[in-house]
Every structure is written in structure tokens, then in C-alpha cells.
């Protein structure tokens, strides 16, 4: 087999909700080979390894000692991403980090510097553009189906996060709450559809006050774009849903995930629904799988990743500005993104010059 076609050896770090999602997608993806998994919660990692038929590593060191592991996929609590990614890149491994890339902008900029200096691929899980519904909205907007957009609303909701055993989501310093953890997807959509916002105003409950309950409302100002309003909820007892609406001079486009299942199953009251239904195999359209394919191809010398570190920083700083706006009870202006990166690049050049 040509080296360029060889599957990328991958280890999944963190065996929680997102680690399991990625493991299932990786198992069905021909462009990667799932070597093994490691997580701080050993039982969780062991179960995931068993489910996906891969190895369970006993430490992060062991992962990085394994020559089969070319890349790590980091799906741990947000505040731990930077350290794990830095260690991986120091060990010469490509890294894919779940979104949000890091908890702070400084940590994300550090990752950017290290990735640039090392030449390793650093991907970030900005998966939303791989979802067909959001691509369909993008296509409709590009066709001009609603004319000139005037007001756009994006949101997602779920129950208060209780899936992580240590409940790290309820610690704002680890997760950033619903604004940073969830609305970053909707920030992606605003940037993808309409361009870079220049101002943020937001009100946020904060996930550290009521056992993880959180609610965030944000308004983004995009020059020559529509009014963009985002809503995120970790207070939705019905479970997960997402929605989008764009209204323009010629019409409106409306999407709500609720009630749009191509397949649904419920057991009768007399039967146990937990055991009856086999889980679906991830299909060709699996957004997480397609994201992994792009990551693998970037490593093998393909096209640049859509969700690269620059994109991730662009979205993270907006999500963080929501928290800042809430703290200040005021509008937070955003520096033009190209100026932020120009400053970073100049700083890198100075360091490189100093070393030379």
C-alpha cells in the first residue's frame, strides 16, 4: 500500500461522550486505524476499548511510546486540551482536539505557535459544517433563496450536562458553560454564512450556579450581515435539539431538528426499550467520520482542514467574548481577526529571528 493511502494510526484520548462518538466513527472510517484509547477514567476507557475492539492504553506516555500512533484525538474536558495537545506535538504526533480548542485564548495561541513551528497537523472539532442540514442552509443562502438576509437565529439545547462522571461541565473554568461549549457551533455558522462579527453582546446564566443548568443569549454584529441572535440552553429537559432560521428580503428559511427523524423507534410500554434496538452503524454521511477523513487526508498531504487552529481561534474568541460581555454587562468589540494573527505571526518571527 502506498504510504499516502495508509490509514492514519489514531489513539483516542478521553473515553466519555465525545471520545465514544469519535471512536465509533473512527472504527468505520477507512482513512484512520483506531489503535487504542486512553482516558483518566480507566473503567470508561476499558469499556470503550472493548466496544470498539481496540487497545486500552494504561497511560498517556504509553500512547505516545507506541509507534503505531501517528495522531491523537483529544476529547477530554476543555481545560485539559492544551496540555495534552502540547505533549502530543512534542512527541511528534499530529493532534485533533475536540471543540472548544482550549478554555482560554492564550492557550489556543500557544497551540497555534507550536503547531506552526512543528509542521504537525492540528485539527479542531468544528464539526458543524459537516452536517448536511447546515450545508443545505449555506447552499440556499448562496443561491439567494431568501434574498438579502435581515435577521438570523441559531440555537441548540439539551438537558443540564450530567453525562460526565466528574461533572466538569458545571465548572465554568473548565468548560466555559453552554456559551463556550455549545454556542461555539452557532458562532461557526454565523462566521461561515455571513463573515466575521465585530461586536458581541450576551447574557449568560453560567453553569456553575445551578448544578450545570445554563442559558445563554447572544447577539453578534456582522458588518453588512443580518442581525445574528444565538440561544443556547443546558436547561432543556426534552433533550437535544438544534434550530436555525434566516429571514431575508425574499423569504425565510427555517430548520428545527425536532420531529425530523428519518428513522425512529420506541418500544411498547410492555417492553424494555434499552435492549431491543441495535445501534446504527456510522454511515457515509456521518459528520464525525467525514471530519476524520479530512483530518487523515491533511496528514497524508491533502487539502487543508476546514476546522484548523486559525478557524478555532476565530470562534473561541467570540464565545469567550460572550462571557466577557455578560461580566461587563456591555458590548464587547472584537479586533479584526487578521490583525490578531498578524500580531501573532510577527511575534513568532521575532522569536525565530532571536533563535537564529
Amino acid at each position, binding site marked *: 500500500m502506498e504510504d499516502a493511502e495508509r490509514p492514519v494510526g489514531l489513539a483516542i484520548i478521553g473515553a466519555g461522550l465525545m471520545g465514544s462518538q469519535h471512536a465509533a466513527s473512527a472504527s468505520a472510517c477507512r482513512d484512520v486505524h483506531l489503535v487504542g484509547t486512553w482516558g483518566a477514567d480507566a473503567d470508561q476507557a476499558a469499556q470503550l476499548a472493548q466496544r470498539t475492539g481496540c487497545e486500552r492504553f494504561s497511560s498517556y506516555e504509553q500512547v505516545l511510546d507506541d509507534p503505531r500512533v501517528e495522531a491523537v484525538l483529544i476529547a477530554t474536558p476543555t481545560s485539559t486540551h492544551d496540555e495534552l495537545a502540547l505533549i502530543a506535538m512534542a512527541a511528534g504526533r499530529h493532534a485533533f482536539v475536540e471543540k472548544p480548542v482550549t478554555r482560554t485564548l492564550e492557550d489556543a495561541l500557544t497551540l497555534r505557535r507550536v503547531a506552526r513551528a512543528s509542521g504537525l497537523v492540528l485539527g479542531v472539532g468544528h464539526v458543524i459544517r459537516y452536517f448536511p442540514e447546515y450545508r443545505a442552509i449555506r447552499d440556499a443562502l448562496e443561491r439567494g433563496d431568501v434574498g438579502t438576509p435581515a435577521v438570523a437565529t441559531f440555537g441548540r439545547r439539551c438537558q443540564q450536562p450530567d453525562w460526565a462522571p466528574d461533572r466538569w461541565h458545571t465548572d465554568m473554568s473548565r468548560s466555559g458553560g453552554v456559551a463556550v461549549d455549545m454556542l461555539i457551533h452557532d458562532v461557526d455558522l454565523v462566521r461561515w454564512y455571513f463573515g466575521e462579527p465585530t461586536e458581541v453582546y450576551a447574557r449568560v*446564566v453560567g453553569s456553575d450556579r445551578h448544578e450545570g443548568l445554563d442559558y445563554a443569549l447572544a447577539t453578534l454584529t456582522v458588518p453588512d450581515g443580518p442581525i445574528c441572535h444565538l440561544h443556547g440552553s443546558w436547561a432543556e429537559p426534552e433533550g437535544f435539539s438544534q434550530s436555525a432560521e434566516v429571514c431575508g428580503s425574499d423569504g425565510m428559511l427555517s430548520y428545527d431538528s425536532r420531529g425530523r427523524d428519518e428513522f425512529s423507534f420506541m418500544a411498547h410500554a410492555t417492553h424494555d426499550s434499552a435492549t431491543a434496538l441495535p445501534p446504527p452503524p456510522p454511515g457515509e454521511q456521518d459528520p464525525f467520520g467525514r471530519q476524520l477523513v479530512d483530518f487523515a487526508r491533511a496528514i497524508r498531504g491533502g487539502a487543508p482542514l476546514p476546522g484548523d487552529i486559525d478557524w478555532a481561534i476565530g470562534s473561541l474568541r467570540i464565545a469567550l467574548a460572550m462571557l466577557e460581555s455578560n461580566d461587563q454587562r456591555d458590548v464587547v468589540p472584537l479586533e479584526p481577526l487578521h490583525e490578531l494573527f498578524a500580531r501573532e505571526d510577527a511575534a513568532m518571527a521575532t522569536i525565530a529571528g532571536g533563535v537564529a
Partner: protein
Amino acid sequence: MKVGILGTRHVHADGLAECVANCGGTLVGATERDADARAAWTRTELVDRDELLERADAIIVAGTNRERVDDVVAATSAGLPTLAEKPVAADADELARLLDEADPALVMVALPVRFAASLRRARTAIAAGAIGTPLAARGTNHGQFPGGWFGRRADAGGGALQDHVVHLSDALCWLLDDRITRAYARASQVMHPDNDVEDCGVVTLDFESGFFASIDSSWSRPASFPTWGDVWLELVGTAGRIRIDPMATHLDLYSDSAAKLQHVGYSDDDMTAAMVRAFLEFARERPTTSPVSFAEGVHASDVVLAAYASVDSGRPEPVTTR
């Protein structure tokens, strides 16, 4: 109860008149200055204002926003209980005149949302602790562009923010027994370039209790939308979530003659009729405060004025405390 209508050009005028007739009131006439509107009005005879104020026991003020304060002042000066369309004033100057010259005890403001059965149920549930401590809310009061004078600043004083924010801002104050302290708003005018007011607007509100909410009041529903718009509200608290959608009860009608999907409502809960019944009872019984008080209507307009100040300044602005 003999009811007169001052001004017929608000889109609600005809519906209010119909409710009066259906709720046991007697329509005794209307006033209208505009020739086209005079020609279009068929529900009662048209008379001049002084004569109507003589004939009537109660008044409904349903002209343009610009006409409102003058009509409310005239009606309350004649000592008549008055149902005033919303918003209570077209702008800050008109609001100042209203505060100076109208008799607050005689005014009820036509904010029907709180009369919807779903809203009343929500208020009871919140008071009973069903959602615990209320934290935040999100609402939409979208509409189609109402047309005509609503798009002219001279007649309306503002666009979609002026027309629709008050319904849900007032409903939230009423649901929570709370008041609004600050507003941040963005507005755009993209859909109807011939108007001189905004057609889209989103406002974020802070309340005295720490509660916050956003309201999308945009005239963003296209002409092809199945109905005039929506009223929708979600409130979250520490113990639960309430969602209110008074227009959810509708059939879907696919009609080739209309060439668009249409909603056919089937709820027997009519918030406008409930509001008119409450007004007729207020006019009969004359309690010290009306079911939607002058102060509440003024507060709703103060919220809209803060929203416009925010659109101009680009920052959140305080709501006037009175």
C-alpha cells in the same frame, strides 16, 4: 355598555370592534380622519370626536400610533374608561404629554397576550414554584409587515421594535411580577426599503430580579407565511422549563387557490375577546386600577424607548424608572 372607537386605522381596530359586539357591548360609532380609512370602515357610523365622547360610556383608541395620545387624553378628559392600543405613545415627547394630561385611573392598555389561557396557566405555575427560581427567557413575536402607516415614522414612531416588543416585554413583567431595567437592541431595515422604519429587531432585556430575556420582534414573516406571525415564549428556571405557544393549535390547510400553506386556528381560547371582556367589566365596575394598567403600558413604552436608544448608541441603555 356603549362603546366608541377613536381611530380605525390600527390593524386591530376591526377585531376589537367585533369582540365588543360579541361580548355584549354596543358600538355607538367611530372617528376617522383619513379618507381611505373612512371609506373602508363599515362596522359603525363615523361621527366627530366630541359627539362620540358624548354618546359613549367607554372608548377604544385604535388609530395610528401618532394619533394615540391625543385620543387617549380626549377620552379620559371626558371621564371615559379607555382601552388604548399599544404602544401607548409614538415617541418620548408623546409619552411625556400622556403622563401630563391623561387620567391614569381610566386607562387600560390593549396588551392581550396576558389574557391567553397559556399565559395565565404559566403565571399560576411560576407562582406555584413549578420552574423554581426563574432564570431566563427567550421569546419571539414575529409578524408579517402590517402594511400602510406602520412603515412610516411620521405615523408609527418606529417599526418592528415599536410594534411588537411591548407584547412580550409586558407579558414577562406580568408573569414574573418584575420590571425591566436595561435594554440592548439591534435593528435592520432590509425587507421593506420603501419604509422609513426598521423591519427587523432583536432586543435583550435585564430585569430587576436578575432575570434576563431576549425578544425577536421582527416583521420577518414573508407574505407566503401560513399566518400573520407568532407569539412564542420559553422560560427556564432552576426546577423546570415552560414553553408557551398560543398559536400552536392550528390545522394545516394546503389550498391551491391560496397557493400557500395556511394555518386554521381551532383554539376556543381567544385572547383578544378575553381582553375586551375584561375591559367592559373594568368600564362597568371602575376599580382603581385597570387589568392592564396605565403604568404597565408606560413601562412597556419606556422599554421600547430604551431599545431605540440602544440601537442609536450601540450599547445597552437603561429603562426610565418612573
